[in-house]
């Protein structure tokens, strides 16, 4: 049997490179298996199984609805409050799930990483794919009442805006992966970071216009909100789905640029540290 001789070298600084497309193509079978593993294993042995996937955002949306709409009486600018909170809740958990999945890439998969080699970046990628699939199901669950509302409401300013949705979702994925990968490396060196990051994540949910529209924030503070790349994403998503308000064009462009930079930094830091960092697990 004649095999193609692949030559390789192992050096102190060696890594798998940061060309993601090359890695994904070369390891597509493994990536596929890792995603399946996460998907299958997720809700096994729970009473209602995968239904939790739909119940979770529904229950949080209900909670937010009662607290923010009924008690605090937040003005949602003509958007049905329940749909407003449902969208916020599924999109936020989309972000935070990918973020956590990337952040704990090394810690949760330590037993595998210490035994076999593959480009470590496959783990955050697999996590992102896994959560994107879950999010897709939740989105469908959200779209049904949304279209029902649109059909009864004449106020929707056009479906063309829906084309911006994939861009926003891509931004959520890249931002969550980028920040998550940065944190995952630092966290192994400084374990204290884990608690700080958990706290910041909770804080970020309130610092981003998810549970309230940005319009109720006093104008002179609004500028600070735009510093958070997620603000533009969530505002835009609402405009796209509900057709109320206008797209914050400049903040969205700036947020997109920041997202790309963070993602590239994340991939670079992650792939450069992936071999050395195993010593710290």
């Amino acid at each position, binding site marked *: 049997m004649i095999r193609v*001789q692949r*030559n390789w*070298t*192992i050096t102190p600084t060696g890594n798998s490179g940061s060309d993601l497309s090359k890695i994904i193509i070369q390891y597509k079978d493994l990536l596929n298996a890792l995603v399946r593993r996460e998907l*299958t*294993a997720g809700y*096994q042995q729970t009473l209602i199984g995968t239904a939790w996937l739909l119940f979770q955002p529904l229950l949080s949306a209900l909670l937010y609805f009662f607290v923010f709409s009924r008690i605090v009486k937040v003005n949602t600018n003509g958007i049905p409050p329940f749909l407003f909170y449902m969208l916020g809740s599924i999109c936020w958990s989309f972000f935070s799930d990918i973020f956590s999945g990337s952040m704990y890439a090394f810690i949760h998969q330590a037993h*595998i990483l210490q035994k076999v080699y593959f480009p470590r970046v496959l783990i955050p990628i697999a996590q992102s794919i896994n959560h994107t699939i879950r999010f897709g199901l939740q989105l469908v669950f959200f779209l049904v009442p949304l279209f029902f509302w649109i059909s009864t409401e004449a106020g929707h300013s056009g479906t063309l805006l829906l084309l911006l949705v994939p861009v926003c979702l891509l931004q959520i994925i890249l931002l969550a992966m980028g920040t998550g990968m940065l944190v995952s490396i630092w966290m192994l060196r400084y374990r204290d970071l884990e608690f700080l990051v958990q706290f910041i994540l909770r804080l970020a949910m309130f610092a981003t216009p998810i549970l309230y529209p940005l319009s109720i924030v006093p104008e002179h503070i609004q500028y600070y909100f735009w510093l958070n790349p997620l603000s533009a994403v969530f505002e835009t998503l609402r405009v796209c789905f509900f057709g109320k308000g206008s797209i914050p064009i400049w903040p969205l462009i700036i947020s997109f640029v920041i997202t790309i930079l963070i993602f590239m930094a994340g991939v670079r830091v992650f792939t450069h540290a992936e*071999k050395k960092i195993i010593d*710290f697990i």
Partner: protein
Amino acid sequence: MCAYAIKASGISKSYFLGAQKTYSLKRDLQSFINGIFNKEPRTTVHEFWALRDIDFTIEQGEVVAFVGNNGAGKSTLLKILSNVIAPTTGIIEGKGSIASLLEVGTGFHPELTGRENVYLNGHLLGMNKREIDMQFDAIIDFAGIDDFIDTPVKKYSSGMYVRLAFAIAAHVEPDILIVDEVLAVGDTAFQQKCMEKIKKISSQSGRTVILVSHNMTVVEQLCKTVFWLEKGRLIEAGKANDVITKYLSVSHDIVTKKTFLNHHEAPGNDYLRLSSIEVETAEKGEKLFSNLPLAIHCSLKRISVIQQELRFRFILLDAKWNCLIDKYADLVNASAPNYDIDIELPGNLFHAGFYYIYLTAIASDGTFITDFGRVMEYYLSEPESAANIDSPVTWGLMNPVFSFHVKVSPQ
């Protein structure tokens, strides 16, 4: 043909032990502030070299083993070869695909079915989907679990789990296979299957196999070349037989005679103590050959008076803790101050390998008098004529000479 499969030069690996093994923000800030004020850091960093300047070349198609005591750096070296951890210095050049079995069943998820786990684990070991598809039936067959392949592995018995995990490992077909002590799993029959598989892999398809094992019998049977690591350094490399004999004689303090002058260090207790023990074969020399009768001489001293008659119990274990012999001597009078035990085991009784002698003294009413523990260890070598690397793997505990003829008749 002398093409190398792996060529390593100057491999070292250091770890920081003690204070800075895991970093903390507080400590780093502290050392940063100390740095500003030119203070000596309060934390002490202790550098530990797990490997130091290792050079070796492994030829294509060779089966080699790394031996050494625990902590010698064998596993670290395998991890570096597997690309799991990075060396601190040095470079390794290799040719061909590589798969490492540092454990069996890496990535197995209890909720997934056997089939799903075969694919997941296979991919982790570097097989692509087509390769697994081709091998799938062979894997299931090897593991012997066809009925359970679509059952989640959490429902498997531990034996089935290990068999499936190993079956996948055995069907990975890289150019270079790295195996870490995984032979120590499963029952004996299954182990034998695995040994045969490794032999076949290397002999038929010219693949390179790198093993780490504590089982010298296995190493001796499988490998041509052995590397001996000690405290992170490569101290001996060469023909399997030579290195193993040297390694065993040093690492296990192999002596054929032990004498205890100081009572307090001798095995035993306040009733009886060992004063000397010796193993020898008729043919005096450095090695004890397995085909020759083996004589064991043992002298004991009585320290305090024992009221009853007593009998001695002799136990012989092999390197895998199989009890080969457990035998009682006749009752003897306990009033004498000295005892001499002579045991003679026939030749051609056991295979080459490691053996441990345990000794106990028991009173006539069954009460324990003295447990001497392991009093001696010795290594039986294959007789020179039979030391043939191509001899098939055997798992028999005994090796008697008996008639075993196969008659071949035409038609």
